[in-house]
């Protein structure tokens, strides 16, 4: 009896000394389980589009929640970030419709440590969310124009590094995730450059990343057993970019017109 009590006591101590679970959760296309009715997702995606259109946003940074909030680590509120771009969309039956298209960096389904640049629509973007909420950052008109110029140029693709890690260090070139690619596009737009050395130097100088609050043991185990978790690009305490830190960066340097949250009702 004493043996069993000690066993559970030790387990309890170890479990409770772990920090809140780490998660990136969802730089991927929604190819699996759905958590809301399709019509709810389609309706919500349209609400996001209409809100952006009312505000005259040509480009917006959009965050989604691919995991229950209480399972997200400290400081992480959104699990995937994409760029919404007001576009002329050609329907399969040949009509030209105004709406938003999402520019994403998604992990591959069967190779999660590799990513691709993929465009989809808001209904696709929100298809697999676990929390029906969108985080929105609307850049200033000047920055919107410059981001658009990057998106239609080769620079957009040149800034993509397919080697993926959920906790990619935004200050290095080794690995990249969706938020780092978005940050690189924004920084390229601000400085009107495609030179990664200039982009990284300015991010290092002005961007405050999110510290990754995970116990070293858990992180080590993750890097051993989970393909899309790597620590090789973190010489010091791990840091990464998030939707929130991008919002803070743009706000601090007067490059954001508005930050808002969209929920189904309200």
């Amino acid at each position, binding site marked *: 009896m004493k043996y069993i009590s*000690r066993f559970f006591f*030790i*387990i309890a101590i*170890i*479990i409770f000394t772990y920090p809140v*679970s780490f*998660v990136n*959760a*969802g730089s*991927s*296309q*929604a*190819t*699996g*389980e*759905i958590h809301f009715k*399709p019509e709810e*997702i*389609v309706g919500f995606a349209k609400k996001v589009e209409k809100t952006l*259109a009312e*505000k*005259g*946003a*040509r480009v917006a940074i959009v965050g989604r929640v*691919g995991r229950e909030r209480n399972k997200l680590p400290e400081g992480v509120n959104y699990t*995937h970030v994409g760029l919404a771009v*007001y*576009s*002329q*969309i*050609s*329907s*399969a039956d040949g009509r*030209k*419709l*105004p*709406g938003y298209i999402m520019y994403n960096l998604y992990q591959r*389904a*069967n190779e999660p440590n590799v990513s691709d640049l993929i*465009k989809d*629509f808001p209904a*696709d973007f929100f*298809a*697999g969310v*676990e929390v029906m909420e969108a985080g929105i950052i609307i850049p200033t*008109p000047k920055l*919107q*124009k410059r981001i*658009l110029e990057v998106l*239609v*140029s080769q620079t957009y693709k040149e800034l993509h590094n397919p080697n993926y890690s*959920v906790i990619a260090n935004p200050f290095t070139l080794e690995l990249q995730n969706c938020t780092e690619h978005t940050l690189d596009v924004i920084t390229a737009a601000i400085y009107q450059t495609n030179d990664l050395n200039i982009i990284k130097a300015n991010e290092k100088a002005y961007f405050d990343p999110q510290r990754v609050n995970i116990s070293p043991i*858990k992180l080590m*185990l*993750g890097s*051993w*057993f*989970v393909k899309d*978790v790597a620590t090789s690009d973190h010489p010091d305490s791990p840091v990464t970019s998030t939707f929130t830190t991008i919002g803070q960066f743009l706000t601090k340097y007067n490059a954001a*017109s508005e930050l808002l949250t969209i929920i189904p009702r309200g």
Partner: protein
Amino acid sequence: MKFVKSLTIALLVTLTLSVNSFAGETHSGRAFVEAGNASSHASASAAHSIAGTAQVTSAALAVPLFVVGAVGGLSNEIAIDLMDIATAPVGTPLEISDESMTVGPAPNNALGEDI
């Protein structure tokens, strides 16, 4: 001795649980993928569910609706009736279609199990 043994067992159990939870939490997208694969790439997947609703329209091409600077190079692809929107200043309220678009499922899902 018993204490060392119990400590070892506890550590092994806990570390195993930790890794499993890490894997499960780290990438819910992967969980989606696995769930999707497990359900024969079909009706349970989010993309299929969305694509299957009567509310969405399949779409293929899109160009930014903005004629300025480098983006202006795309202006010849923009429909004439949307040109006013394309040339309006940033911040001007924009027209939006009531239709929802979707890209449809990924190729592997569209092909199904027999690929």
